[in-house]
């Protein structure tokens, strides 16, 4: 098989073209007239295509994963909420000033069991994107998430959080209302929350904005999701700041930055930041949201089963140690 990605992409395109051509009624009747078993041939080609696709998507570069994680058809938090939970009763607002729609949350049932769900929510069309600030929460969104986390704690319900944001909002209003304080407070309070917490990184895990809702006991990440300290674009701008470059050259640099940041789920697992990588349907989660949701649901149920056996003290201790040990350093005696 080809190892060069562009060769593989060419093979995929060729196969798709051949299949589409054979499926056209004119070609079909011609083939049948010539005594060719076209249905068998189509099955064989489809199988070959699936095989090539599987291989292709198993070896995506960090930049290709970034593109996939940001794909406009990729399922968002609310899509999974609807597919995974038996019911969902949405709750609005931070009880302070606002209802930030970049964050959603509410009461849900997972296989009948009551849970509290929060998530970072992008928009499908332009209007919804604007309403949800492109999934970039301001202070109000993080405060809404914390209010719901505290609600989960108060009533001893597990908390499930879906992560999908390019980053927290960085505009004037976010700054005026203390987005940094809101993120910091979430990190501190959720670290000590006395109830089980599951995190699912489903798309983009964009730096502090993602982390602000991603402290938990088990962190799951979809196969092609990304999680990074900075966007590849931001990283490239810092490393190779040069506005004179052509768009192609800039894209190349951005891809290099994605490589350097190692922002893939596989690397997050290697670093101990996430606990499990959930396989996506071939071609990405958007090709089969129902199957993807089933995979996530299974993982949530099995991790929750384990966590529910622990006392609140044990949970908080283990969670503290979990984040406490993250990092890479060498130590000599002073």
């Amino acid at each position, binding site marked *: 098989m080809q190892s060069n990605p562009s060769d593989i992409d060419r093979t995929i395109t060729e196969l798709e073209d051949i299949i589409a051509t054979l499926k056209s009624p004119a070609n079909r009747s011609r083939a049948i007239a010539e005594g060719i078993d076209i249905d068998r041939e189509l099955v064989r080609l489809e199988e070959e295509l699936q095989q090539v696709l599987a291989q292709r998507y198993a070896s995506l570069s960090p930049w290709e994963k970034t593109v996939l994680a940001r794909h406009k058809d990729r399922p968002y938090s609310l899509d999974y909420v609807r597919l995974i939970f038996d019911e969902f009763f949405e709750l609005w607002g931070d009880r302070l000033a606002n209802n930030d729609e970049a964050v959603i949350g509410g009461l849900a049932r997972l296989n009948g069991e009551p849970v509290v769900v929060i998530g970072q929510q992008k928009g499908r069309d332009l209007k919804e994107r604007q309403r949800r600030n492109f999934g970039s929460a301001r202070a109000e969104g993080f405060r809404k998430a914390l209010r719901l986390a505290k609600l989960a704690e108060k009533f001893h319900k597990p908390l499930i959080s879906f992560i999908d944001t390019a980053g927290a909002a960085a505009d004037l209003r976010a700054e005026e209302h203390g987005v940094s304080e809101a993120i910091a407070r979430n990190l501190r*309070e959720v670290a000590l929350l006395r109830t089980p917490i599951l995190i699912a990184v489903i798309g983009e895990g964009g730096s502090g904005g993602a982390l602000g809702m991603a402290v938990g006991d088990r962190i799951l990440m979809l196969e092609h999701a990304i999680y990074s300290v900075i966007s590849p674009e931001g990283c490239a701008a810092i490393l190779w700041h040069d506005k004179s470059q052509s768009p192609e050259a800039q894209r190349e640099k951005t891809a290099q930055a994605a490589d350097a940041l190692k922002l893939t789920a596989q690397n997050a697992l290697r670093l101990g930041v996430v606990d499990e990588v959930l396989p996506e349907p071939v071609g990405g989660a958007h090709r089969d949201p129902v199957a993807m949701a089933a995979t996530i649901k299974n993982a949530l149920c099995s991790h929750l089963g384990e966590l529910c056996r622990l006392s609140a003290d044990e949970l908080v201790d283990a969670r503290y140690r979990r984040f406490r040990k993250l990092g890479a350093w060498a130590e000599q005696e002073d």
Partner: protein
Amino acid sequence: MPRNGWFSRRSRTARVMESVPDGIATKCVKCNEILFARDFERNLKVCPKCGHHHRLNARERLAITVDEGSFVAMDEGLTSLDPLGFPEYAEKFQRACANTGQTEAILTGTAAIESHPCVIGVADFSFMGGSMGSVVGERIARAMETGLERRLPVVMFTASGGARMQEGLLALMQMAKTAAAAGKLDRAGVPYIVVLTDPTTGGVYASYACLGDIILAEPGAIVGFAGRRVANQDMGTRLPDNFQTSEFQAEHGMVDRIIPRKEIRPALANLLSFFAEGNGHAI
């Protein structure tokens, strides 16, 4: 006595302001005023004309903050690795060590401020922009845990552009680590005091820097989340002139007091004494 005091202070500040360039004069980065190096040092690197607070490195900050000889460094044996094999990280790190004489972007230890014992951390912006990687996060968490074990108040001087990009996701996780450690202090009722200095932004501001029981700031320091350049991309919004400064954060309720450099040491001593003394029963 005033004469003696004056001389001893001068000789002390002249020694500690090591990053003042050699020669007799220097220039204020804000107002371009030519300043005599000796006056500049004596004024703790605050411009006598415009009041601009120039950045201090960690050793300079310690020298003007803690009682002489009281600082005992902790965790100096922690050294950063290059977990991602990030382009040019090793070289940049070596250069930072050579240029600053430090091993990382923060110094932590125990010390006394006007005889009040505390755990102290002082970030160093001159070391890779004060960025928080694994070792910075680990030193902060250990400092806080020391404060917790010994029930010593924790004082943190922040100065950082944010998480250290070169350590990727592990740098991001230091936000969670330091915030969780601050949470332990919070629950245990151990005082945690933050002094925001120029600049404190990004993942550092959005984690341990925002979590003090008391948050002080130096005048005119850049303090904010994402940087003016990023916020400016938001079309149609005119940013206020003081956007992402200590004054802006104070205006929006994020800072307790803005305190000029010379008054920070007595202010800290006063706070430490306040938290250490009494429980109201004597009233």
